[in-house]
């Protein structure tokens, strides 16, 4: 129960006036980011990261994680009112959310979405509170082979659990690793893959890549689709909120199931998008109103939103406890830790108690603040979407450029961002997944370090990855994941596979 004491201390840290203010700023910026096309959780946090360089790490992480919660909430607004998912994980929310809005029940749909987001996140935070310290304690015993095996598992899981061509996942991932290797080699001090270019000596910063790939790339995509916002009116009056809240307990089974799906997919690098689809599919199958799904069922909003938020929150568990993020946004936050001079990983729980528990406490409070903010300000954010695209597009590009510049105060980075934007656009159109690429870019150096240390310990013998039952089982699991597409094919030959009815709608991310 020492953890509960630490948590209380965390609340004390968070509840200072400055931090509460930052929390509100973060949530509002986050919802704004979630609502605007081209700005999402990952690149929103990446752009605003330089703002926090001068803050204390605890205040910084509170503001940035609140931006993340805000973005998660914001995605639901566009899905329900405009039938345009602001984030990939809110695609499933459009299935029932938009029909509800068309029937004039936008208020009820939004209330249900926000409330279930809150519940999903809350369940996940409770899980993190109790599980993260245990995982961290366990991971303190890890040596470099174990860490490398966990990295291996993370990346192989993308191949095993990702949608789309496994070859493309592999290419995207190794491209990320290759870009991460550019620049000064930390062990030997040699310059790698710079081809004599001085600008490349700094290497490729993942923040620039994230801003370009997700920000500029997304703007180009929305431009191509000829984005037009024709939305439904939204007003949430307190009566509808209370009415919806009275109705929600009926769907407790869906909430529990979706939370569990979300937590599982969040801890493993499955991510929020597959979690929301899986949970929607399960709810459709198991609900007695399953046949009516897609025509505007509250339950069809509850399921994906709960799961997406639970997954988005749980993605922070491996980041905190192991230093291995479960999603691109968590990866950006991890990059933030490094910049603020903190070493992510299990030692964080021992050396930076204030920071860790402050963050966990801010997850509780941030989601509560988020719920209140979005319930009261939906009309305001909905009206932002009515601003013509010819104003929004240049402003977003300016924001991206400023974000890219402030990372290192280098103009070269702004050009690089533009290049990454084009890469992001082409990759998105050809279904190359961006998440594994970004994660590889962030984790490349760390994964390589643990690999080298493991190899040094064993004098180059790869069998060190099976040297004890723990590392052996992680490595074996990783290899199963890596070859899962082939294994699944083999199974399909023996037994006819079940059809995935939402396969075509699920985006590759």
């Amino acid at each position, binding site marked *: 129960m020492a953890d509960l004491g630490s948590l209380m201390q965390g609340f004390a840290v968070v509840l200072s006036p400055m931090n509460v203010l930052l929390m509100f700023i973060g949530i509002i910026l986050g919802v704004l980011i979630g609502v605007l096309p081209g700005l999402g959780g990952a690149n929103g946090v990446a752009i605003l990261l*330089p*703002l*926090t*360089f*001068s803050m204390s790490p605890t205040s910084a992480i509170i503001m940035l994680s609140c931006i993340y919660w805000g973005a998660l909430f914001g995605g639901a607004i566009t899905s329900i009112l405009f039938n345009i998912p602001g984030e990939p994980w809110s695609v499933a929310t459009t299935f029932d959310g938009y029909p509800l809005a068309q029937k004039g029940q936008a208020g009820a749909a939004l209330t249900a979405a926000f409330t279930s987001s809150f519940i999903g996140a809350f369940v996940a935070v409770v899980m993190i509170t109790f599980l993260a310290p245990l995982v961290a304690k366990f991971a303190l015993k890890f040596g470099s082979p174990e860490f490398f095996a966990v990295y291996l598992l993370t990346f192989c899981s993308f191949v095993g659990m990702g949608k789309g*061509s496994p*070859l*493309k996942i*592999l*290419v995207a991932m*190794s*491209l990320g*690793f*290759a870009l991460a*290797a550019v620049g000064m*080699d930390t*062990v*030997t001090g*040699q310059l*790698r*893959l710079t*081809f004599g270019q001085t600008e490349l000596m700094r290497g490729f910063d993942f923040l620039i890549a994230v801003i370009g790939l997700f920000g*500029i790339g997304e*703007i*180009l*995509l929305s*431009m*191509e*689709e*000829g984005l037009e916002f024709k939305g439904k009116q939204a007003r949430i009056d307190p009566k509808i909120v209370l009415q919806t809240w009275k109705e929600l307990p009926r769907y407790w089974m869906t909430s529990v199931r979706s939370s569990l799906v979300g937590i599982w997919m969040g801890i493993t690098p499955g991510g929020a998008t597959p979690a929301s689809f899986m949970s929607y599919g399960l709810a459709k199958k198991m609900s007695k109103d399953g046949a009516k799904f897609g025509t505007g069922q509250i339950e069809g909003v509850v399921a994906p939103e709960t799961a997406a938020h639970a997954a988005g929150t749980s993605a922070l568990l491996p980041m905190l406890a192991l230093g291995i993020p479960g999603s691109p946004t968590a990866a950006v936050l991890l990059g933030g830790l490094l910049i603020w001079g903190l070493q992510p990983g299990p030692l964080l729980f021992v050396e930076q108690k204030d920071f860790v528990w402050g963050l966990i406490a801010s997850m509780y409070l941030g989601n509560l603040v988020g719920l209140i903010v979005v319930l009261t300000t939906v009309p305001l954010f909905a009206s932002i979407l009515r601003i*013509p*695209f*010819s*104003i929004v*597009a*240049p*402003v977003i*590009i*300016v924001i991206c*450029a*400023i974000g890219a*510049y*402030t990372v290192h*105060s280098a*103009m070269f980075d*702004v*050009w690089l961002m*533009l290049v990454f*934007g*084009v890469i992001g*656009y*082409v990759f998105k*159109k*050809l279904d190359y997944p961006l998440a594994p690429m970004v994660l590889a870019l962030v984790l490349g150096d760390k994964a*390589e370090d643990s*690999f*080298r240390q493991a*190899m*040094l310990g064993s004098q*180059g013998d790869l069998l060190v990855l099976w040297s004890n039952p723990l590392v052996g089982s992680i490595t074996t699991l990783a290899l199963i994941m890596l070859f899962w597409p082939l294994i699944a094919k083999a199974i399909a030959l023996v037994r006819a596979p079940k059809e995935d009815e939402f396969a075509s709608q699920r985006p590759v991310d």
Partner: protein
Amino acid sequence: MSEPSTTAPAEGVRTTTVEAVVAAILLALGLVTATESWRLGARWTDDGPGAGYFPFYIAVVMSLASAGILVKALRQRSGDTEVFVDRRSLKQVLQVLVPAALYVLAVQFIGIYVASALYIALFMVLLGRFDWPRSLGVGLGVCVVFFLMFEVWFKVPLFKGALNPTGFLGY
């Protein structure tokens, strides 16, 4: 995403062609990385794995996988006629991309504030058909907000370039 491809006659570049070109570029990148890593020392040295050890194997994976995609794309080429991006969409994409590149070029010379205000105003006038006073107003307003947010509140300096519009304020 690009639904008109089935009805409209194939206009523009086919998806499989782009797929093949991208895979070829990635393959080339993989091969370059592999040779460069090999040169750096991709083998076991006296004090452990060399600097190119890890990148070399990464590059091998990348080359093999992109070769696989390339072969697949070339084999599909004859059957698939889906268009990667039709003319109209391409025009719209370039309408954003080209001004964005010009904007970055402008930032390089005249700094982020002046360039941003001009870029937003011009974008609004030329593509959004707004009138000049309103466009300039929005451009200037956005820049003032960014100035307050970055330089005043969070103390993060932005790129001023040759013109130094905020010099008189001491920033």
